[in-house]
């Protein structure tokens, strides 16, 4: 992926979520909402190292992963609105967006729940699609789940092409990392499974991209899984109206000053990309988001009885 494309993807995530948040506070969107804002460099950096055929699994905070992997903003927005035209026909909502066609195996609202699923997708890669890899995104909180341990160990002993990407945003809801684990770098856990681990600045999209590329190359060469920890930070609260008062103001300020999109924008300008060009991208993105909202708003609601469809595969 070109760096300009990465910039555009990060911006899509940011603008999409700003919009969604706005609609949400206006009560136009049901349920709850976990925003990815601030962590865009992780999803985009990692997915930049992937092909459309590669698989990813995601979390309750999945908008960024979807967009980075190439999901349609329209169908995402429609899903978040609970419309029939959404990715999941309104059945999944924000926490379950899935796009099988682009290898996005689903956001997943059980913390750590998708880790073994990613291992299984990795097994399919190994046995059926030797050119593909699977990326498994999960949080710092998820890394204390049994599934983390069982899943990574299994991928390790089977040399599966799975890249485990821990998005360490320092908190699980209101729980700071240091309250629930006695280590600083979650990548240290890789040694317990005999696989490489790396910690990277998760707000630096190029750093993430390079680390991901190394891991993807290993995986494609049959050398098994890698654990990459990306240190990052969420700009918003955990969900809905969480004001995130449990975070010290200086900490928030420090991380806000390291916005992954802004800093990458400076780099692009430094590199000589004309500002007008970036402006053009920015307004393209705005338009795409508006179109997505329009699509969602104009789309029909599901019928109540649709609730009974898609429970089983019916021959």
């Amino acid at each position, binding site marked *: 992926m070109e760096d300009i494309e990465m910039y555009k993807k990060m911006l899509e995530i940011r603008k999409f979520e700003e919009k969604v948040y706005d609609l949400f506070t206006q009560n136009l969107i*049901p*349920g*709850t909402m976990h925003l990815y804002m601030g962590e865009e460099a992780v999803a985009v950096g990692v997915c930049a190292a992937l092909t459309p055929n590669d698989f990813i699994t995601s979390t309750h905070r999945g908008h960024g992963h979807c967009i980075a992997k190439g999901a349609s903003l329209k169908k995402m927005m429609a899903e978040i609105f*609970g*419309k029939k035209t959404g990715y*999941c026909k*309104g*059945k*999944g*909502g924000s*926490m*379950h967006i899935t796009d099988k066609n682009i290898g996005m195996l689903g956001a*997943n*609202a*059980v*913390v*750590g*729940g998708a880790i073994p699923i990613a291992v299984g997708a990795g097994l399919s890669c190994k046995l059926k699609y030797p050119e593909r890899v699977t990326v498994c995104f999960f949080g710092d*909180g*998820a890394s*204390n*789940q*049994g599934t983390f341990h069982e899943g990574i160990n299994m991928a390790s002993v089977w040399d599966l092409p799975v890249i485990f990407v821990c998005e360490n945003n320092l908190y*699980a*809801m*209101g*729980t*700071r990392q240091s*309250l*629930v*684990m006695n280590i600083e770098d979650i990548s240290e856990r890789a040694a317990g499974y005999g696989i490489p681990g790396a910690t990277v600045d998760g707000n630096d999209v190029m750093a993430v991209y390079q680390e991901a590329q190394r891991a993807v190359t290993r995986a494609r060469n049959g050398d098994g899984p890698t654990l990459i920890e990306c240190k990052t930070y969420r700009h918003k609260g955990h969900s809905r109206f969480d004001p995130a008062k*449990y975070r010290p103001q200086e900490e928030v300020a420090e991380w806000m000053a390291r916005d992954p999109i802004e800093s990458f924008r400076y780099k692009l300008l430094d590199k000589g990309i004309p500002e007008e060009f970036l402006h053009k991208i920015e307004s393209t993105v705005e338009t795409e988001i508006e179109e997505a909202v329009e699509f969602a708003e104009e789309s029909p*609601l*599901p*019928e*109540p*009885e*649709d*609730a*009974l469809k898609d*429970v089983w595969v019916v021959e």
Partner: protein
Amino acid sequence: MREITVVEALNEALREEMRRDENVVLLGEDIGKYWQGAFKVTKGLEEEFGPERVRDTPISENAIAGCAVGAAMTGLRPVAEIMFGDLVALAMDQICNQAAKLRYMSGGQVSVPMVLRTPFGAGGSYASHHSQSLEAWFVHVPGLKVVQPSNAYDAKGLLKASIRDDNPVVFCEHKFVYGLKGTVPEEDYVVPLGKAHVAREGEDITIIATSLMVDRALKAAAALEEEGISCEVVDPRTVRPLDEEELCASARKTGKVLIVHEACDTGGISGEITKTLVRRVFYYLDAIKILAGKDAPIPFAPVMEKWVAPDEERIKKAVKEIVL
């Protein structure tokens, strides 16, 4: 008497039991001072009792339950919270193979006085991983008690009884029962486990309803009264042990029964209740009907989500189908 919400009632129960007995400790994800519990049931408790007794845990459901088991076996009386009821799926081994069976397997040497609290139920567009009602899983496990409060008075009294009970108790709170207000006395009281509550007396039909469905059944009953149909509403309160006497007495009295729960129909506790009635009062019954959640995971979009659970209208309709 003062009116408080179910959340407040539960909070009081925890607070008072912690004051009464220093062996009562709480554990769970984000139950401490930073978040106060996903639904604020543990509000202010870390502030009062400190981090040793109100323990924020890692996201490790099976270890949360298992830690409670080990602590309970050795003298504490832990109350563990699983943040959403759907996630009990991760802790089934510790709840069902360990907590429930350790007394038995040890020939009665140990007891496991723990409570596992968890919010069940749909209604908030939280979708399929945060909305189920899974009490039927626990009802099938000898060694457990299973509680489902439907109002503030019961919530407080049942939680206190559960904490004082020497058996492991799965305490199923409904997210949309949390906000219901009711009168709750200031003084200490318990609601004994295993006793149903006749929430409304009536003559024509018995509605056996659990959890949030009690509220809906009462509303339906009030509306039906105006149409001349007299409904008795019975709330089992604990679905294990089930108060067979009370349920059968009411069924025998009216001869007609409607069972209402939010959990999926197939395999839900309506089966067990039906079986109990058939066993004990079959020949007194004119009709049994079941109104339960649709057989699907809980969908996200409100228009579908609302449709899968029984509501007042459907309860009224079902009653009329039986009575008229």
